[in-house]
């Protein structure tokens, strides 16, 4: 049936070959609508089709914090940005080249946010011009004319009218019409579009799939017949198998593959979608997701499961991470392996739940009261989201430590093709050790050199002891002895040093030496490295280093920094501006990583940071490098 439909669609596309096809190296497309109109799904699908064609892609979700924000409102804008390229893409890029907007207000929100390239092509739903509400019609016309006056190339599209030819309610399905238009505009194979529709609605009836495929074809045909624009972004299909996932899905797949079988969580944006997916599939590996009554309980549950021999993960975002601090400290004190994921969002407090920020690094390193050493690592891209779960579980169980993995709202929802992971038995956890404990062995028999001690998991004969959050000696007995207390603190601390000895120095991107070195961590990697490529093409001697481990930090950074005249730390957390009239060197606050680097290495590392709630653009970093090297 699909083949027949394909044939007829090909025939129905009049003048398709007559249009000149403009070849592009890359394009950034934004699709924006009111919440609930499906622009996000349309964007994700367009990205998937492009990826299946062999293009490099990166998507950025444009997402309101509310489920049903007011229609036709700036704050309610929902959608997706898709960067499509001939090559691999590692970030959302700069301003958009082409926008499809379901109304003029959501379009305005993107223009106001400086996300749209001046003069770019805008495909705008035209039904508002003749809206029965005269106010709406007037606002639409006024906005359209103003933007035309500003030089935007606005093409009004009768999306609603065209959709109504095929379905009774265009609100559901207009996004598929738009998807069809995009397939035509970017010369993508419509058959891949049909397959994508079938995937999206795989759990729905055939009739629903068919109806949406008809809309897809209608959009494709309409664009082919009526639009002058026709692009092609040449793609080379990768020979090795790829998967297309967003960061939270990659994270869930990573949990699935990590040998962990228990995930305890409490709903919080933007972390929750990872648990949604995991809830659906965790049983395939014998796992379960426990939605606890609160964040504290979720962490305590994970502590209990991990203690009992099944290393568990708890997944949360900023506010939830704050709530877990005491239980994290307990795991540190009891030397219980546990993985904690913090999908960072804007803070403090409720902050910006759906927006990106990297403000939790210091909390991750130093959170929980007292000296609570824990491993902190960060995922820099989608692939990292997957593998960091496997690494985190292994490190947690090797060092009997809490491993905190930081991702963020940018990675959570960004999609990218990555090489399909190849299964390894080493990913999986060993069975729970139930062997008898050797005579006279101690539950905290700390190695004087590494601080490491074996673990007595319940069920092991002769290993009975009471784990306690109180200061304790090697026998897990509560102690008040000052010397023993200090020795125990030392041993827990030493484990970080022992891990640090196994870390390789971070690779330098660009040249080994030069005028300026950027240090970054987390989701800014793609934008930073793209900026470095651009400025190096301009002849500047700039390089970058991206840290996977934030605590402990690998050796070698000091030597690398020493080979550059200037060091700038780039991240999405707040730093004071020395230009401000009351800011000076006595009160200037630095961004998160800058505090760490300055403190450890006593270097006068500068920082460049922004907390706009959106991923940093390569262009902004590029301009900054030019400024600093003037």
């Amino acid at each position, binding site marked *: 049936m699909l083949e027949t439909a394909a044939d007829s669609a090909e025939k129905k596309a009049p003048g398709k070959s007559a249009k000149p096809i403009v070849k592009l190296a890359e394009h950034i497309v934004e699709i924006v609508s009111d919440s609930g109109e499906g622009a996000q799904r349309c964007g994700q699908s367009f990205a998937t089709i492009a*990826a*299946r064609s062999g293009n490099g892609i990166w998507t950025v979700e444009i997402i309101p914090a509310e489920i049903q924000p007011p229609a036709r409102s700036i704050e309610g804008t929902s959608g997706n940005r898709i960067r499509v390229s001939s090559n691999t893409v590692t970030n959302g890029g700069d301003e958009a080249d082409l926008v499809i907007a379901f109304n003029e207000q959501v379009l305005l929100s993107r223009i106001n946010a400086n996300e749209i390239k001046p003069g770019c092509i805008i495909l705008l739903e035209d039904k508002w011009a003749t809206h029965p509400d005269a106010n709406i019609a007037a606002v639409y016309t006024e906005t359209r004319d103003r933007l035309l006056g500003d030089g935007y190339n606005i093409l009004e599209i009768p999306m609603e009218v065209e959709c109504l030819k095929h379905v009774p309610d265009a609100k559901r399905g207009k996004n598929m019409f738009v998807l069809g238009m995009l397939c035509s505009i970017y010369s993508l194979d419509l058959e891949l579009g049909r397959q994508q529709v079938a995937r999206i609605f795989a759990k729905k009836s055939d009739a629903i799939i068919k109806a949406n495929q008809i809309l897809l074809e209608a959009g494709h045909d309409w664009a082919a017949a009526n639009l002058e624009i026709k692009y092609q972004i040449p793609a080379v299909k990768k020979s090795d*198998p*790829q*998967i*297309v996932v967003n960061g939270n*899905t990659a994270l869930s*797949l990573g949990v*699935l593959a990590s040998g962990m*079988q*228990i995930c305890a969580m409490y709903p919080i944006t933007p972390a929750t979608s990872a648990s949604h997916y995991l809830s659906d*599939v965790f*049983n*395939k*590996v*014998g*796992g*379960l997701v*426990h939605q*606890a*009554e609160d964040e*504290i*309980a979720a962490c*305590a*549950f*994970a*502590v*209990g*499961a991990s*203690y*009992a*021999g*099944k290393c*568990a993960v708890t997944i949360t975002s900023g506010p939830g991470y704050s709530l877990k601090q005491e239980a994290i*400290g*307990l795991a540190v004190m*009891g030397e219980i392996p546990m993985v904690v994921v913090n999908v960072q969002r804007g803070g403090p407090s409720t902050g910006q739940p759906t927006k990106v920020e990297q403000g939790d690094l210091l909390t991750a390193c130093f959170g929980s009261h007292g000296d609570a050493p824990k491993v902190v690592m960060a995922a820099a891209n989608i692939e990292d989201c997957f593998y960091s779960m496997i690494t985190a579980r292994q490190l947690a169980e090797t060092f009997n430590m809490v491993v905190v993995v930081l991702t963020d709202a940018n990675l959570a929802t960004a999609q990218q*093709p990555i090489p*399909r*992971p190849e*299964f390894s038995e080493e990913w999986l956890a060993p069975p*729970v050790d*139930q*062997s*008898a404990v*050797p005579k006279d062995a101690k539950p905290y028999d700390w190695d004087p050199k590494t601080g490491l001690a074996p673990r007595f998991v*319940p*069920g*092991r*004969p*002769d*290993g*009975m*002891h*009471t*784990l*306690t*959050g109180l200061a304790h000696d090697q026998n897990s*007995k*509560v102690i008040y002895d000052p010397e023993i207390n200090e020795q125990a603190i030392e041993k827990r601390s030493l484990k970080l040093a022992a891990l640090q000895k196994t870390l390789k120095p971070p690779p330098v991107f660009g040249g080994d030496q030069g005028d300026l070195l950027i240090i970054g961590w987390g989701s800014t990697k793609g934008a930073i490295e793209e900026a470095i490529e651009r400025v190096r093409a301009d002849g500047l001697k700039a390089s970058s280093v991206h840290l996977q481990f934030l605590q402990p930090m690998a050796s070698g950074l000091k030597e690398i920094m020493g080979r550059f005249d200037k060091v700038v730390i780039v991240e999405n957390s707040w730093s004071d501006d020395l230009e401000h009239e009351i800011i000076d060197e006595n009160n200037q606050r630095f961004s998160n990583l800058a505090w760490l680097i300055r403190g450890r290495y006593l270097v006068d590392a500068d920082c460049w940071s922004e907390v706009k709630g959106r991923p940093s653009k390569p262009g902004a970093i590029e301009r900054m490098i030019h400024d600093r090297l003037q």
Partner: protein
Amino acid sequence: MTNNVAERLLGYDDEVFGVEHYQSDVLPRWCSGCGDNAILTAIQRLCRDEKLLPEKTMFVSGIGCSSRLPHYMNAYGFHGIHGRSLPVAEGIKMARPDLNVFVTTGDGDCCSIGAGHWIHAIRYNIDMTVLMHDNGIYGLTKKQVSPTSPQGLKTNTTPRGSYLPPLNPLSTTLGVANVSFVAQAVDWIPETLYDIISAAFHHNGFSFVRILQRCPEFMPDMFDPWVQDPQQMLLLEHVNGLHLSPELGKVYTNQEAHDPADINRAREIASLTEIIPVGVLYRNEEIPRYDDIRRPRGVYTNEKIRAGIEEELDKYTI
């Protein structure tokens, strides 16, 4: 003791278990006359009588005088943080259904800082035995008002008397959907204390036992009217509940034949204020258990796990 697990299990039936088998080398540090000592003794007797393997037995606690109990047991213990013993115990039991899980908590730990977890733990109905030592006062932090303190009690944080009537742990527990076992014991009747803890242990699900426990340091007279006058106690006797020995029956003549299946009467008994009821108020073995519902079924070999992972990767492969 042998280090071979199989040999050990084979010899299990012949092994002699004494109370001392369950005593750790740490001497209890509770105040002399503290009711916690009676609870500890009852638990050690239960372990002996049930021949529980120490390595398969788990005592989880939070913070407070009651929560020191795991240190005094020769078993695995988890002395965690204030108020969180229940979610920790839930994680343990979900990960390890083979362990016997006991929770010892107090009126502050359970009914105040951990109250949210308490409500949900009742509803989860995960198989564990929860002993809530209720002395109506914060002891470890030295005499602050607790949610179960009698109204008007002068404490360090209520020097002119506490302001509100106490929370009723029995009524609260019996008000939660999916409740399956609620009992009350007192530290000064060791025989029923033991019997009630034993009934709780044998219950299939989350068994909640409130144990009225005397604090000689900060609340020396609190339970005197009941300790001194057995008529002020109401002993609940039933074939499906508590059995009173003839000797005890002669002392505690105020008795009621209460069927633990009757939740309405249980709620009435729970709300008595002048009289202290002792016995099993409610028991229902048919209540669904979250640990049972959620337990992964089947054997997950590496091959099976790999197949599950590959199947998911297939979904996203382009």
